[in-house]
């Protein structure tokens, strides 16, 4: 290695250079472009745009649209991550023991997270439809009053969350299983000799030892849920006051209203949040990897 590494700087850059250049072109350029156009009144159609100073930012912070979308997205992220983590962990605990056909069951449980959220979200429209959806048929047969999952103002946000839980609980389950299986059985045996109660074993051994991996899971899901777009578009469209998230608000502002300058200001504010989260995330990965080489 050392012999090869010396004097091979050119080759190293030739290998990593193209990728880095492409990523810079498609990520850093848009950021700079957004910052510049956020100080203008640029529109999607029509070329003329004027410098308007910080006016767009004033609109972002004065308008309750942004605050509402931010609150809704935060609520979505917190609820999605919490419910999926809890369900996923319970599932992982249930799947810990070996049984016949475990691999097949496990693979079947994992399928939802691999599917297209846009396509599955659309199909859930049929499943949850208030008048002819199978869920409501089933509820009616059981004697319940069938709710309007997708059109009730107070309900549709939670319906979207439910679809997200359906898609992403398997991911949490998969990570939890990895965390659980990384705990050496000798520790459990030692606890058994010490006659520790099941609850104590769970809170003192299982949870703390899964901790770092579960932390990764939470960060992965949180950064992903923050971008929530596909499901909201599929269920209610971008301009629904009860379900508008940051991404769908951006879509509405830029592509429906054509206000590029305002959209750019929205993007910049959102990106500050995203970059802050990404920094926390990468630091955390670095720490976990350095500590136990997960």
């Amino acid at each position, binding site marked *: 290695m050392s012999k090869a590494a010396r004097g091979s700087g050119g080759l190293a850059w030739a290998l990593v250079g193209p990728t880095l250049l492409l990523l810079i072109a498609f990520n850093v350029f848009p950021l700079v472009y957004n910052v510049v156009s956020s100080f203008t009144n640029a529109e999607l159609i029509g070329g003329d745009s004027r410098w308007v100073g910080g006016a767009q930012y004033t609109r972002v912070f004065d308008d309750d649209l942004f605050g509402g979308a931010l609150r809704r997205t935060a609520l979505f992220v917190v609820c999605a991550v919490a419910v999926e983590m809890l369900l996923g962990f319970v599932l992982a605990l249930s799947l810990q023991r070996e049984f016949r056909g475990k691999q097949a069951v496990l693979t079947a449980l994992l399928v939802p997270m691999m599917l297209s959220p*846009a396509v599955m979200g659309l199909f859930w429209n049929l499943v949850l439809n208030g008048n002819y959806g199978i869920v409501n048929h089933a509820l009616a047969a059981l004697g319940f009053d069938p709710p309007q999952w997708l059109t009730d103002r107070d309900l549709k946000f939670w319906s979207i969350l439910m679809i997200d839980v359906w898609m992403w609980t*398997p991911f949490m389950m998969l990570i939890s299983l990895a965390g659980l299986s990384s705990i050496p059985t000798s520790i459990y045996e030692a606890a058994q000799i010490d006659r520790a109660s099941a609850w104590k074993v769970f809170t003192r051994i299982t949870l703390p030892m899964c901790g770092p991996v579960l932390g990764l899971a939470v960060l992965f899901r949180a950064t992903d849920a923050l971008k929530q777009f596909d499901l909201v578009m599929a269920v209610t469209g971008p301009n629904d006051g009860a379900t508008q998230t940051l991404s769908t608000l951006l879509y509405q502002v830029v592509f429906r209203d054509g206000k590029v300058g305002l959209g750019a200001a929205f993007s910049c504010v959102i990106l500050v949040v995203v970059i802050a989260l990404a920094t926390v995330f990468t630091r955390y990965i670095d720490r976990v990897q350095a500590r136990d080489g997960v």
Partner: protein
Amino acid sequence: MRVLRYLVVVLYFLVATAPLVWMGLSSLKHRDDSIRPHANFLPALSAPATPTDPRFEATLAAYRQLGEVHAGAQQSFWSHLGNSVLIGVLSTLASVALGTCCAYGFSRFRVPGAKDWLFFILSTRFLPPLAVVVPVLIMYRTLDLQGTHAGLIVLYTVFNLSLAVWLMKGFLDDIPRAFEEAALVDGYSRAQAFVRVVLPEARTGMAVTAVFCLISAWNEYGFAMTLNSSGAITVPAYFAGLQGNIEGMPWPQIAAGALLFVAPIVVFTVLVRKNLLRGMTFGTIKQ
């Protein structure tokens, strides 16, 4: 405890698979049956006598009608599926090729600031597509790439680079350096050692990486609908575009198309099941 465990697993198994089962059943229906106000979930050979019967007449009509052009779209499902295949496959090949080279550079050479670069690469994945799409759109308008296959292929290639680099770096780090050193001693050049010794060893890793890149390009919607609303429309954007059209949703055809669209993904999931966790976490958790 044991009973509870089985109960949880069986219940969740039903929840996880039910929508796909329903998709299969819906694809066999006539449109009227798919929106009937009474439940019908048992396929039968002939139409039932009463409208409240839980049976419906099974038909393959929806699959035959996939070639039809629905209101709200310009082309049939098949041509959109073709777009998805072309864009998915080509962008995947490009991502894996570029990503493998880049990962090899980071894995075997001393690149100044390597860690910072790697985390920069990973963090590109966190950007919401909608927050960066306008500058890309303006760029594509100037280059005449809007609504073309090439435009989305390039974009998905770049979008998947973070995944490809991080996954491949994990796989390449696992290959002992001794292999290449032996090759170098035998008189191979650096490049020869990479192509003839390292790449064959990394075959599995490259296949797994390709599957994950393909799935992520296959499923992508945000960029697809904003950049390619006029041409080279992929399946997710096509289906979404059918919403709210005047003739109502052609549910059986959508179910049939969606089933064909997700079937390859289910197959791939089974193929890479041992590497699922690794792929979903960008190689940060190796199992």
